[in-house]
């Protein structure tokens, strides 16, 4: 009996400590994220207020509009394509890069910096530089393909390649970013495991597959959730490169959302898109997290 309450009180004390540790972060989160997010949810059930005309309750109308919005669906399709390309490719590249620069490879400091540049350079500049790369006729890509005798191509201006072109920029940006986290994680692995594997004659691939990869799972989970979310959040370069064009060939959901919110000023409809985007993202990301977290090996 006594023991039960003693154990109980220690559990309570633990919980109090934990919540105290969380408190500052949670207060700020609630104030600057959750509260605005809830008001976004509320807004999505009203019409867009225009001047002194307050929004009126319209129920699900904004959502119905969304279902009937062809641009929205185009953005959804594009975004799925974009996510399907950026997530695996950037994670794989990040991992390979991290594995390389974690070793004593020639020019390690330079390689690290090279891979990290996408994170350092501001998007405004980067997008403009990529714009140059993609420019027909004298752009870098053209200079290269031209030297190889290939025909000229308007990468950003043709609907077949615009999405691929912006995807490439995203991969470039993401891979270097995630590389940093893999690199940090690799450094915390116990080096004697590598020795043990070396003695057993494991090849690099085998060692990676059986030891490093599983032990990097906490980081992969982190990176995966972020890559997934970023696939729906990274649109900055669109503003410079294609503005979603031509004819929505490269439009992504968040870009569409920006258009609706900050160009059309249809805040209610924007709220509805936000709500759907956040709910779907949160659903998938949290599912990923809570399912995978169980399978991840932590020490």
């Amino acid at each position: 009996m006594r023991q039960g309450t003693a154990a109980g009180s220690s559990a309570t004390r633990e919980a109090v400590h934990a919540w105290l540790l969380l408190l500052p972060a949670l207060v700020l989160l609630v104030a600057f994220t959750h509260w605005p997010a809830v008001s976004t949810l509320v807004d999505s059930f009203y019409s867009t207020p225009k001047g002194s005309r307050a929004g009126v309750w319209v129920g699900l109308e904004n959502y119905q509009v969304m279902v009937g919005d062809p641009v929205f669906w185009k953005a959804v399709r594009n975004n799925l394509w974009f996510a399907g390309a950026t997530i695996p490719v950037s994670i794989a590249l990040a991992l390979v890069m991290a594995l390389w620069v974690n070793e004593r490879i020639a020019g390690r400091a330079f390689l690290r910096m090279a891979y990290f540049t996408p994170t350092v350079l501001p998007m405004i500049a980067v997008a403009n530089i990529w714009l140059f790369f993609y420019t027909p006729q004298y752009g870098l890509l053209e200079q290269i393909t031209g030297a190889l005798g290939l025909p000229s191509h308007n990468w950003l201006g043709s609907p077949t390649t615009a999405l691929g072109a912006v995807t490439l920029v995203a991969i470039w940006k993401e891979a270097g970013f995630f590389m940093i986290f893999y690199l940090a994680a690799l450094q915390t692995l116990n080096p004697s495991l590598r020795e043990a594997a070396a003695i057993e004659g494991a090849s690099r691939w085998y060692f990676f597959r059986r030891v490093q990869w599983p032990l990097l799972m906490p980081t992969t989970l982190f990176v995966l959730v972020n890559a997934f979310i970023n696939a729906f959040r990274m649109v900055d370069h669109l503003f410079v490169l294609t503005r979603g064009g031509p004819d929505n060939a490269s439009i992504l959901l968040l870009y569409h959302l920006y258009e609706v919110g900050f160009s059309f000023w249809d805040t209610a409809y924007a709220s509805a898109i936000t709500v759907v985007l956040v709910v779907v993202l949160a659903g998938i990301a949290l599912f990923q997290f809570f399912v995978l977290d169980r399978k991840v090996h932590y020490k």
Partner: protein
Amino acid sequence: MSSIELIDIAKSWGDATALQSVNLQIEPGSFCVLLGPSGCGKSTTLRILAGLETATRGRVVIDGRDVTALPPAQRGIAMVFQNYALFPHLSVAENIGFGLSVRKTPAAESARRLREVAALLGLDALLDRKPSQLSGGQQQRVALGRALVAQAKVCLMDEPLSNLDAQLRQDMRRELRELQRQLGLTVVYVTHDQTEAMSMADQVVLLNRGRIEQAGLPRTLYARPATTFAARFIGTPAMNLVALEGGRIAGSEVATGHDAAMLGVRPEAITFAPRGIPATVQGLEYLGADLVLRCAIGSQVLLVRTAGGCEAAPGDQVGLHWAPEDSHGFDAAGHRID
């Protein structure tokens, strides 16, 4: 069967020197035990042998092949790490079978070998556990299992039994020795347990501060220690080393007939004899089977090992005796005088 040769191996990290100049020859199929005090360079020697550490100087030759620059995987060795180095995310079975699956050993064969090793080490019931769910000794056995299952021609073991209880340890010793003989393994074995060294070794190598102090048959090291260090290091309790002053035990009139700076006598070589050298019991330590008495002669103290049942108390006067062939003389530099 593989021979091993270490030629003039030295190793230092910055200022810290772990090995000074180690030359060692290990016969194919033999069991070589590295002995020595903590920090003397035993693990370092093994790690250089394995190729996990690059020697600052010197060469490693296995089977006549210079492997100094070869990666561990190409040296054909197995190893038990002093800190186990188990894969934390793999089960016991996977840890043990790691090398087998690396080498793509057929499934049936690996299952059989895994079963055998697990049975040998008493791990059958634990095969699905993760290392974090094992006791210290169980982890050590897994580490041992991982090395044994490989059946590599050369097996390096760094204190593989240190966390096992006496009984299990004894069983293991026997099994290891048997396995080694059966498979013709060349084993290099680090231990701090002399019983282990004595009972298992074909050759004992005694290291001290990164140098080989003495290498030879166990019996030789016990019976004819080359230096006072070797004399003191081997045997429990350690050999008594009594300072002599002009052939007499310092602070007494007892003549020894030795012209040496030090006289060594093993505690177990001393018996009680009414007409022996008179000594005073100063203290005693009970060790179960044995009793160790601390006896003073002049200014010197000698330990005497006797049967556990013996009745003695501090202050008792006793007579001590030892055979001339049981006494060892050392010069002032600590070298044996024969």
